[in-house]
């Protein structure tokens, strides 16, 4: 099996989906000739022509709004927002339009489209190149929200998202584009080629939306997370020498609650991690659901570790990012409380 970076896996998913279904078209800012500022659509225009993959004017509402119209026509647009931090101008089209079209028209129209966006910090991008807005999607009925953590999943989930009949928000933590970043920013970068999840099968495969993946099995503690923090959690568990079960949620809505509940009932302890701002982050929803469903199994309070309730800072990025030390301390607390 070829080793791929997450960027290559995303490119490959596009290629496979576009080959199989000529209704799939790809556009966004700098995604056409240039192939995207993160190169995720590189080569698509050359391969499929300017009518399947093209550049768009800088107007995120226009990009998603046009995609809604195209999807209503019967195409399957997969568009890129250059950074998740720039999705706000498109938020009305996402929330009021894409998310509700099927429901409000009682199935007369639908909006099968994918909005891809790089998320998360760790590249000194400051407050407008580092955000993780997943909780702004999970609150909206009608949206499927995916956050990927590795090349294998990224390909299978992107293909599934493009094939899905409803709008999917597809979040790509940019810090894991090139390797399984574990939060130790001062250590050399480990490439995906040295990681089993960097092995990506050729051709078509898809991963069912709404299914989590047990990233690491364990008995002492359940860690619920997604994206970059999956790798941070693993590093922390190893460093703390804890038998933590790490669940990579992959899809936030719909949520794979069975996998979560089974794990927490087994371990009796639960840690929730994400990079986004703590208050009203998706961790709150996870904590609430675990508490509702596992109340009598919990031996200690569910702990959330997340970005602070501040804009993502530039210089103090590593004081903001929930790295392995902060996560490790929380793990210890969860098992000793």
């Amino acid at each position, binding site marked *: 099996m070829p080793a791929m970076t997450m960027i290559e896996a995303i490119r490959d998913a596009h290629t496979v989906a576009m080959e199989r279904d000529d209704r799939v078209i790809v556009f966004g800012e700098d995604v056409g000739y240039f192939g995207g500022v993160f190169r995720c659509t590189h080569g698509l225009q050359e391969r499929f022509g300017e009518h399947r993959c093209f550049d768009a004017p800088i107007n995120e509402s*226009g990009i998603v709004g046009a995609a809604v119209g195209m999807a209503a026509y*019967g195409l399957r647009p997969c568009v890129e927002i250059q950074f998740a931090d720039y999705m706000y101008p498109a938020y009305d089209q996402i929330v009021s339009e894409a998310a509700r079209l*099927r429901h409000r028209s009682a199935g007369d129209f639908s909006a099968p489209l994918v909005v891809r966006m790089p998320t998360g910090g760790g590249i000194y991008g400051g407050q407008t190149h580092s955000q993780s807005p997943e909780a702004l999607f999970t609150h909206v009925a009608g949206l499927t929200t995916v956050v990927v953590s590795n090349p294998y999943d990224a390909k299978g989930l992107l293909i599934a998202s493009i094939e899905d009949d409803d709008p999917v928000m597809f979040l790509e933590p940019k810090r894991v584009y090139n390797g399984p970043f574990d939060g130790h920013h001062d250590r050399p970068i480990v490439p995906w080629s040295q990681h089993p999840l960097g092995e990506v099968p050729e051709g078509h495969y898809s991963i069912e939306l709404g299914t989590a993946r047990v990233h690491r099995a364990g008995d002492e503690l359940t860690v619920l997370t997604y994206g970059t923090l999956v790798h941070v959690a693993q590093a922390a568990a190893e460093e703390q020498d804890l038998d933590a079960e790490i669940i990579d949620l992959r899809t936030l809505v719909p949520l794979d609650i069975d996998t979560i509940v089974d794990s927490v009932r087994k371990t009796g302890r639960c840690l929730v991690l994400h990079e986004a701002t703590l208050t009203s982050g998706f961790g709150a929803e996870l904590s609430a659901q675990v508490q509702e469903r596992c109340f009598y199994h919990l031996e200690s309070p569910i702990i959330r570790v997340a970005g602070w309730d501040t804009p993502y800072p530039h210089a103090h990025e590593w004081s903001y990012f929930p790295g392995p030390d902060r996560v490790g301390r929380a793990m210890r607390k969860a098992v000793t409380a």
Partner: protein
Amino acid sequence: MESESESDPPGLRLRIPEPARGRQPADRARFISPAGEMRKPALDEKVERVALMRKQLVRVLDDDGNAVGEWVPDLSADAKRTGLRDMMLVRSFDARLLHAHRQGKISFYMQALGEEAVACAQKRALDPGDMHFPTYRQQGLLIAGGYPIVDMMNQVLSNEYDPLKGRQLPVLYSAKSHGFFSISGNLATQYIQAVGWAMASALRGGTEIASAWIGEGASAESDFHAALVFASTYQAPVILNIVNNHWAISTPEDFARGASATFADRGYGFSIPALRVDGNDYLAVYAASAWAAERARANLGPTLLEWITLRRGAHSTSDDPSVYRPADEAQKFPLGDPIDRLDQHLTAIGEWDEERQAALQREVDQEVEDAFAEADSHGSVKTGAVGDPRSMFDDVFHDLPRHLVEQQAQVGEGR
């Protein structure tokens, strides 16, 4: 006219457009050219030259009901009688539902009184397969498109036969089969969606075009810009309609138009040819719509059409316009009433008379009455005949995910 800061300091002053104040606006309906005066440009006329016509108005019907000038469309007397009937049906339909609101049978309604020609004529000028992206005031597209009015009434009543399953506010119809995109409660979003739909049709080498609708007030929204940028860049086969009925709830058109002379002017900066059209002249609407559609189908790109008309009624049943607009505004409106004018024309050319008009009125009223009786027999949101509440979980997604299955089950437990 504008007001100035009271103190009138030596420095800067902010211009606030004059509010309505219930007085007759000084320049309500500006630049009214005589019927027949305006030339019909070539389909590929340079935008600069089209722009020179900006203070003219495409008009076909003159004050005596004669069809004059280059824009006279090739329409048979039958087609014109059909147009008359479409508009009368819309008006009768609106009247019946307003009455239903007064009767307490429905929660909300919005009529198109006075601007029926715009939607009715454009629907007939375009082809089946074309897709309209309407606002809440284009019920004429459905009625002229032959969509069953009883289904529309069921939607408005939100009863069990509502095709939208009681999900939407009254009048926010959806009818893909009839080239009518699902109406959104959020203004302007449909404008760029229409451009996207048109882009898709062009990408697929289709022949269907899209038609985007917006009110003059909502043209101030940002998605208007998104639509014009995309339409211009990709030369999408789309008609961009601005219905200038002079009011956005209580706010006169000036707040959206700003200092520019017309809304049609907004096309120029995108090199989108734009015409101002007498929106109360069925023949002019038909002709201008057909011209724009022909341009689109000939791969000549988008056309912007500003329809000059008047919102004669209240904004909606929740609105009381008496505080902000003069009672006699409709009488003073220089473009008259679309139904009267087509009636007058048909009479002028000897294809119509008072008797037939009266008979047609009875016919459409009866049709509306019958349809309403049927719809009403299914009950309404007010009688509680709204069907199974669990259906509200359907169509959130194509398949019901587990969390919605669980929530749906709880609805069974009562409210």
